[in-house]
């Protein structure tokens, strides 16, 4: 009997836990994406001297749900000339690829669906790149010029920037020595330094390339509203459109997670191995508690009773999260005997917090750029990719490789590895500036060649 239980446990552990995680992601992700959109709109409003959504729920907190309901009950339009099957399939493909990529990510040491894939990062990058099929097919199937051009731009963009992103990832992988997601984070713990600090140029290249890959401003040419109406999504509406939307935001989360894992120490706390900085552990509960207090303060200002209650509930939720986050920190202080028992909880809960925090910061950066910068033109985008990012990332890989050899030779590791990588990064930076200057000179020479033409 015991063996049966044992076997069941084994089975559960192997298959059901990931399945539950997966279901959780599929079920919760749309909601998360909805709230990411809300946060984006709020940030945008803040940067643009206005309030943003304020009507549905207090401070627009229920807006994502209203939006989701609206999208679901919208009429489902398929253009007459569209290829029906592909039109149906394309958004599913896009969102499927994005969700599948989530499977390879480790949000905490234990929270990972596809555990122990030895090609973890490669799997994530490869699968998320599959999403482009959804975009290309969708653009083609809608049988509209705008859609087709959006799709073409998107694929060209992905091809150009995937190279640079891949090269940037190689830099991080050189340090990690493994593709396994969990091991990469462990490697950063062992080194005591995040790879982003060791290879800042690679982090920068990946940042730029990942913005381009997820079609976000200033590289949002495939859906450039002012040029292509909505790019590949022009003919999509309602639920299908929201699937594309979901895919786009999921992709954002995926690239942010990859960057977090590889360059920003994954679920590790900043300076996780430095004992005297352990007080940083108080930051997560304090942050959530402060948010809770803010909600509490705003409660009396809400116009309607329902909204006040809702605000109270949000505050309560924040306090609950704060309590959960605080418990693994406070329990060992109160009762040192329980320290060992609490340890895994600490790793899971705080790891999750830090991971999400870093991903949020990364995505915030995306949004910040979006509201600040104009959009690139297609040829400029391509030139930036091929003339600047790809050479830079390749040179950077070379330099980092050399730095690593130097590091091995002099037995440098941890923070001391910076001695070798910092000169490499500076050199890469100089080369980057050089490439830029060269590119601009070439541009200046080409400019006056515009042929005069007669009046049309």
């Amino acid at each position, binding site marked *: 009997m015991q063996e049966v239980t044992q076997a069941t446990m084994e089975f559960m552990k192997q298959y059901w836990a990931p399945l539950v995680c997966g279901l959780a992601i599929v079920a919760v992700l749309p909601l998360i994406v909805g709230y990411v959109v809300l946060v984006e709109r709020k940030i945008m409003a803040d940067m643009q001297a206005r309030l943003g959504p304020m009507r549905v729920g207090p401070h627009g907190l229920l807006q994502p749900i209203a939006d989701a309901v609206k999208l679901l009950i919208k009429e489902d339009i398929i253009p007459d000339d569209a290829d029906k099957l592909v039109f149906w399939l394309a958004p599913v493909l896009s969102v499927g690829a994005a969700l599948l990529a989530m499977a390879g990510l480790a949000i905490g040491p234990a929270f990972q669906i596809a555990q122990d894939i030895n090609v973890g990062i490669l799997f994530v990058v490869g699968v998320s790149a599959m999403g482009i099929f959804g975009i290309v097919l969708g653009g083609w199937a809608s049988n509209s010029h705008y859609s087709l*051009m959006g799709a073409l731009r998107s694929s060209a963009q992905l091809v150009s920037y995937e190279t640079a992103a891949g090269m940037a990832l190689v830099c991080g992988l050189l340090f990690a020595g493994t593709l396994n997601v969990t091991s990469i984070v462990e490697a950063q713990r062992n080194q005591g330094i995040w790879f982003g600090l060791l290879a800042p140029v690679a982090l920068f290249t990946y940042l730029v390339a990942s913005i381009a890959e997820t079609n976000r401003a200033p590289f949002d040419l495939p859906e450039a509203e002012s040029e292509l109406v909505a790019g590949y999504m022009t003919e999509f509406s309602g639920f299908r459109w929201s699937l594309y939307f979901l895919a786009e935001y999921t992709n954002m989360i995926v690239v942010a997670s990859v960057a977090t894992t590889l360059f920003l120490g994954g679920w590790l706390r900043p300076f996780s191995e430095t004992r005297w900085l352990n007080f940083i552990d108080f930051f997560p509960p304090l942050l959530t508690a402060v948010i809770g207090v803010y909600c509490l303060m705003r409660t009396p200002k809400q116009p309607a009773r329902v909204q006040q209650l809702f605000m109270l509930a949000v505050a309560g939720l924040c306090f609950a999260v704060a309590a959960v986050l605080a418990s693994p920190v406070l329990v060992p202080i109160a009762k040192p005997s329980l320290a060992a028992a609490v340890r895994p909880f600490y790793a899971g809960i705080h790891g999750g917090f830090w991971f999400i925090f870093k991903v949020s910061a990364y995505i915030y950066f995306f949004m910040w750029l979006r509201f600040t910068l104009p959009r690139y*033109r297609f040829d400029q985008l391509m030139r930036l990719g091929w003339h600047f990012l790809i050479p830079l990332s390749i040179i950077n890989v070379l330099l980092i490789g050399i730095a690593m050899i130097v590091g091995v030779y002099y037995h440098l590791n941890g923070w001391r590895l910076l001695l070798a990588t910092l000169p490499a990064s500076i050199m890469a930076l100089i080369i980057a500036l050089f490439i830029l200057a060269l590119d601009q000179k070439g541009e200046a020479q080409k400019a006056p060649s515009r042929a005069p033409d007669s009046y049309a």
Partner: protein
Amino acid sequence: MASNTIAGTGEKQQTLLGADELILNMGPQHPSTHGVLRVKLKLDGERVIGSECLIGYLHRGVEKIAENRTYQQFAPYVDRMDYVAAVSNGLGYCEAVEKLLMVEAPPRARVIRTILTELQRIASHLLWLGTHALDIGALTPLFYCFREREEILKIFEKYCGARLTTHAFRIGGLQYEAHDTLEKDVERFCKAFEPRIKDYEDLLTQNRIWLGRTKGVGILQAADAIALGATGPVLRASGVKWDIRKAMPYAAYDQYKFEIPVGATGDTYDRYMVRMEEMRQSRLICLQAIENIPAGPIMAKVGKVLKPPPGEVYHSIEAPKGELGYYVISDGTVQPYRVRIRPPSFVNLQSFDHMVKGHLVADVVAIIGTLDIVLGEVDR
């Protein structure tokens, strides 16, 4: 018109890969054609090898309406042409009819007209800046611009009760005396506006992407600009220093000091810079004007029924978009025999085909934006 031909581009052109050209129909419902402009583009990949503007979707027959209204009755109609610069339209019409009547608005009216018209110029340029930046992908300036424009519209509202299509002036002067706080309101706006322009410039002027998107895009040489009849900031950006406010002063412009900014290359960036500087100059004009608004009547002696002596007159003003001309013919009756409106947007739009050739699709929207057209005025 046959659906797949574009006038003036010949039958078949050599494309990069020898593939068929793509005919892309932009508009009349498109996010960045600023209304109901329809542009047919002939594309080689993303490169434009031919284009044709199809207009008229907003044609309301304003000139025909004029022939069936009295002089005063027609005045509100002109506000509906360039509806983002209604005050300027009204000024042009009122002055043209005044010229036909051979009366002149009293000094006080002229100064107040100048103030409101210059505020309108700023408002129009702000709207242009916001939408132009939005077309090029910068989302945020739009909201900043609308914030300032709102202040101007509030001044209009205080003055005459309307915000957009104001009908602020009357033939012979002004209907309303300036409200008590006009000077203060204008001054407050002007004070606040200076740092705000700097904000926009911080966002755009030195921005590498903005430079890349506007420098060298849609170049219009001075000779071409004149030949194509372009006026206003479009002409000045090409280096022709011609502003009707200076060349043939109307209203009270001869009393104020201001500069005419000109560009050098005539590209989109120059037009941007010219309009930015024009906003500053307009602000200066407003500040000068509010310092000394002469006292006196606000209406000249014109009868209740206007019967201009037979004859004709062409009067043009420097509207925010360019030369806005009114050619009014009187036959001695209460209704104009003919009112011809020379719309700056319509004529400026004509240079679109010339400017866009050889550029990419993304530049098309930049060029439409930089021409600063209002379809209400193009189609009338």
